[in-house]
């Protein structure tokens, strides 16, 4: 049943939200259904609540984080649920008359229901995490509601501010919740609430308390976070009436009540909560006096009343708790009705500015009376509900324990706040309904539609009923709620309206008198209408946000300056740092033995070193650098030859050729020289970094290669011939042991071809230099190159076939095929080649990959893992037995991909055409 209660608003929100804008009436009916149905369900559950047992339901959700859909309806929750649903019902009714034709009714009501559901969820949550979830949901949905009139700047700002402040509180709540969970070992409310002493004794308690209080204070607009609330008044009035009387802002004090058993009882709690409450009480009330906007006045009044409630919970005596709960109810009723009245006035006059209003009792007598009664309740005038809870407050204020300063301070604050409350209530009534006016309004006000008034009437009647006959009306509710907070500690209290001429009563009277005097005193002393009140909190907030954004932008631009040079230098430096740090605490040991240097190695070494340095020195003249780098490549290849790696040498040589060709092809579209770099400092810095990197790499390499190594390669060597079927172990590794690498490698190669294809197919680029005149046919080289081609094909095939046993293999062979074809491109031109060699290279790449893939899959048929190679000897007539390793077929795939990939790259680079509409650089 609790689940249903919770689900109704959400489901209906979804339904209502999907209605088209013009379906205003159905939307209102459906939306109204939610609170009404909820109230019915709540009523059905009332007996269980009253009996003190409460209702519970549990649905596992995310047990791993201690978050379950645990719902729990005790007295407190019941009271709040009633408040949320009851006032919610009235708000829906009110809103359906309030919104005008331009506003999307379904959307508004959907948001409202969403919010209602969130509130409801929060109050009946039986799990702290779940409570936090709904807590944040109220922030989110209130964002949508406050910003509903989003064409207005103040609405947008107000919404964002409310979200930021209450969202921040919600985040703090998460922290608090986790700490509570850590202390008690559970997030279940039943457990947490029963662990009060344990929590108070925990070293984590202060942190948990502060975090939870942050949530409470932000949500309930306590000092110094109160400033968001007045700005939330940019919302449509039904929203204000709902959020700022009964629901949103009450969430904070609800949490205070909810966690009272777990958190209250320490000095810290007392001083923090009651201190903040007292300050807020005064600050809010004082500011309320000087508002000109009806809703602004009500907003500050709300802040003040929330301060009062907070203060009461801070006092923590059972009686104070009861008073707090009582005031929650009372405030909700009178404040909601006042907001609605303000909305009606706004609706009828087009303004909420009290400086332009006045004398409205004449034109809106009925609404006026209602509003005046509610204001009196707000002022704490006897026979109205506000009086009762205020008197309880005075009683408690007198019984404050603790430091003397605190005792007197709170008692004084109570009287003072009472006076302020009277003053602003007076202002509300006086400036609106009496005196001159209204002025400068462009419409004729008259009483609002019948149904728009009904909610106000109901609420005002409640104010009266409670004020006159509390025992008959509110007593059971309060009792249940108090039981929810205090358990068996509910004190005896009397809800009678008359307790005799005791001190609290005298305080009430004093406050009343002082308030009246204050109001009229102020009017006489200063030009109240001239006071322009500006929210310092808001200004501070906006300045802070703007400043934060500005600083963030500056910092970001500073860090990410779009310079690749910086990004790369950072990477090099990071590598240097992490490479060097280990040696700070231990030395790099050069322990091993070196082999003597063969004479030939000196040559290779010398060529390599000299050419490398020369490449750097000459790098700005690019063609030159390229030629010199050719010598580096040669030296590296020779080093491979010398050090027993013939396959590597071959590959390096061939790749070198293709690379040079590619670089030259690109160089045609790049400047011939690198522009000089202006900063000498940077070059020196880079040189130092480069030397450090080189030195580090070399030292580490030397230290490693002079020590012995126990490598898996010994097994590979042993297995290569008997099980891999080849005596060129490198090739056996490539196509068999680590054939999977090769599969990836040829994929990379093929993709590179595709990427180049994709980037250049439609590209038109203007070459850097263009020699005039038609291209030279280069007859002589051409003739030779064509003669060479079939021979090169033969060599390529040869290298391919023997690769498994001797240096060679698919990759090398593929390049040996590609390089002579490249030569044909160079000598015969692109057009000529495309006419004659118009292969669909991407497709050949695909075929090669397919072959490689299928070879591997072939072993599945035999029940072996992918790429298990199978060597078989096929008897061919005349030729005898030929070895047919599946690895060979795989190598064909490699061959195809490499040849097609490199030709695709070269061909695409070659085929680039100049732009259609010339245009010089």
């Amino acid at each position, binding site marked *: 049943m609790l689940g249903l209660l919770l689900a109704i608003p959400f489901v209906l929100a979804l339904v209502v939200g999907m209605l088209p804008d013009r379906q205003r009436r159905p939307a209102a009916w459906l939306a109204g259904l939610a609170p009404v149905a909820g109230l019915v369900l709540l009523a059905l559950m009332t007996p269980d609540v009253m009996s003190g047992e409460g209702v519970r339901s549990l649905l596992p959700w995310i047990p791993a984080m201690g978050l379950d859909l645990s719902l729990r309806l005790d007295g407190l929750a019941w009271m709040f649920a009633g408040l949320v649903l009851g006032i919610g019902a009235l708000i829906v009714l009110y809103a359906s008359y309030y919104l005008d034709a331009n506003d999307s009714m379904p959307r508004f009501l959907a948001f409202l229901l969403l919010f209602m559901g969130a509130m409801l969820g929060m109050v009946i949550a039986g799990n702290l995490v779940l409570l936090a979830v709904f807590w944040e949901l109220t922030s989110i949905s209130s964002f949508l509601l406050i910003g509903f009139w989003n064409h207005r700047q103040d609405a947008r700002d107000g919404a964002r501010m409310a979200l930021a402040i209450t969202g921040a509180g919600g985040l703090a709540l998460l922290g608090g919740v986790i700490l509570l969970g850590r202390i008690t070992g559970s997030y279940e409310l039943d457990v947490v609430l029963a662990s009060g002493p344990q929590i108070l004794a925990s070293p984590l308690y202060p942190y948990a308390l502060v975090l939870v209080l942050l949530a409470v204070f932000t949500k309930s607009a306590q000092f110094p976070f109160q400033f968001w609330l007045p700005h939330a008044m940019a919302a449509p009035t039904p929203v204000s009436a709902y959020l700022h009387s009964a629901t949103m802002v009450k969430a904070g004090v609800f949490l205070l009540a909810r966690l009272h058993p777990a958190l209250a009882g320490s000095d810290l709690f007392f001083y923090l909560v009651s201190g903040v409450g007292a300050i807020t009480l005064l600050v809010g009330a004082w500011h309320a006096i000087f508002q000109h906007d009806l809703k602004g006045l009500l907003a500050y009044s709300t802040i003040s009343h929330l301060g009062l409630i907070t203060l009461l919970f801070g006092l923590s005596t059972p009686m104070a708790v009861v008073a707090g709960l009582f005031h929650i109810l009372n405030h909700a009723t009178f404040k909601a009705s006042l907001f609605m009245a303000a909305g009606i006035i706004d609706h009828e006059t087009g303004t909420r500015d009290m400086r332009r209003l006045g004398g409205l009792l004449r034109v809106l007598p009925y609404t006026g009376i209602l509003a005046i009664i509610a204001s009196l309740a707000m002022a704490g005038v006897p026979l109205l509900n506000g009086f009762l809870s205020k008197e309880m407050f005075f009683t408690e204020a007198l019984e404050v324990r603790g430091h003397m300063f605190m005792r007197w301070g709170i008692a004084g604050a109570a009287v003072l706040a009472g006076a302020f409350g009277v003053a602003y209530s007076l202002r509300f009534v006086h400036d609106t309904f009496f005196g001159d006016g209204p002025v400068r309004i462009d419409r004729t006000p008259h009483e609002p539609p019948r149904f728009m008034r009904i909610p106000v009437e109901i609420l005002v009647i409640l104010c009266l009923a409670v004020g006159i006959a509390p025992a008959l009306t509110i007593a059971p509710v309060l009792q249940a709620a108090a039981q929810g907070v205090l358990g068996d500690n509910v004190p005896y209290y009397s809800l009678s309206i008359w307790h005799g001429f005791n001190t609290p009563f005298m305080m009430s009277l004093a406050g009343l008198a002082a308030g009246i005097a204050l109001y009229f005193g102020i009017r006489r002393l200063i030009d109240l209408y001239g006071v322009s009140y500006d929210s310092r909190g808001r200004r501070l907030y906006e300045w802070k946000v703007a400043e934060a954004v500005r600083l963030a932008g500056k910092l970001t631009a500073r860090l990410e300056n779009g310079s690749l040079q910086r990004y790369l230098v950072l990477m090099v430096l990071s590598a240097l740092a992490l490479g060097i740090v280990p040696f700070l605490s231990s030395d790099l040991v050069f322990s091993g033995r070196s082999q003597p240097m063969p004479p030939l190695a000196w040559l290779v070494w010398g060529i390599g070193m000299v050419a490398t340095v020369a490449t750097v020195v000459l790098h700005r003249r690019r063609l030159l650098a390229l030629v010199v780098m050719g010598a580096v490549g040669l030296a590296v290849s020779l080093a491979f030859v010398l050090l027993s790696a013939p396959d590597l040498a071959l590959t390096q*040589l061939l790749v070198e050729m293709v690379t040079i060709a590619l670089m030259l092809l690109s160089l045609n579209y790049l400047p011939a020289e690198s522009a000089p770099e202006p900063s000498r400092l940077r070059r020196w810095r880079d040189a130092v970094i480069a030397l450090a990197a080189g030195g580090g790499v070399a030292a580490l390499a030397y230290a490693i290669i002079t020590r012995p190594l126990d490598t898996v390669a010994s097994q590979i060597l042993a297995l290569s011939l008997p099980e891999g079927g080849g005596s060129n172990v490198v090739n056996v590794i490539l196509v068999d042991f680590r054939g999977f690498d090769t599969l990836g490698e040829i994929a990379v190669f093929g993709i590179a071809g595709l990427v180049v294809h994709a980037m250049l197919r439609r590209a038109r680029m203007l*070459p850097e230099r*263009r020699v005039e005149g038609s291209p*030279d046919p280069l007859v002589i080289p051409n003739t030779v190159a064509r003669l060479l081609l079939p021979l090169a094909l033969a060599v390529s095939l040869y290298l391919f076939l023997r690769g498994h046993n001797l240096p060679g293999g698919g990759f090398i062979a593929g390049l040996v095929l590609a390089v002579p074809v490249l030569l044909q491109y160079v000598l015969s031109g692109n057009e000529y080649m495309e006419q004659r060699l118009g292969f669909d290279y991407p497709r050949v790449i695909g075929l090669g990959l397919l072959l490689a893939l299928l070879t591997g899959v072939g072993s599945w048929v035999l029940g072996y893992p992918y790429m298990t190679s199978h060597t078989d000897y096929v008897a061919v007539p005349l030729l005898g037995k030929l070895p047919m390793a599946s690895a060979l077929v795989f190598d064909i795939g490699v061959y195809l991909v490499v040849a097609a990939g490199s030709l695709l790259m070269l061909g695409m680079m070659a085929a680039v055409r100049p732009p259609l509409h010339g245009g010089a650089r």
Partner: protein
Amino acid sequence: MIQTSLNIAMGAFALAMVLNLYRLLRGPGIPDRILALDTLYVNTIALLVLAGLRDTSTIYFEAAVVIAMLGFVGTIVLSKFVIRGDIVE
């Protein structure tokens, strides 16, 4: 005797390569350097063959063949670039 001549021959080729390197670095023109690189490759072929002879190993052969057959590709491509600016037209 053979060993000695082998060593002398290799030394000669090594020296030749050093001279090539000198030209490669000195220039002055790009064609000079291309020529130097080309010669470096050619001398390398001989060096590889000699090394194979010395180590009685055939593994150097492939590299030698490939350089002989395709080593001039670099020369052609670079020269073509100097001649036309665009190596494939």
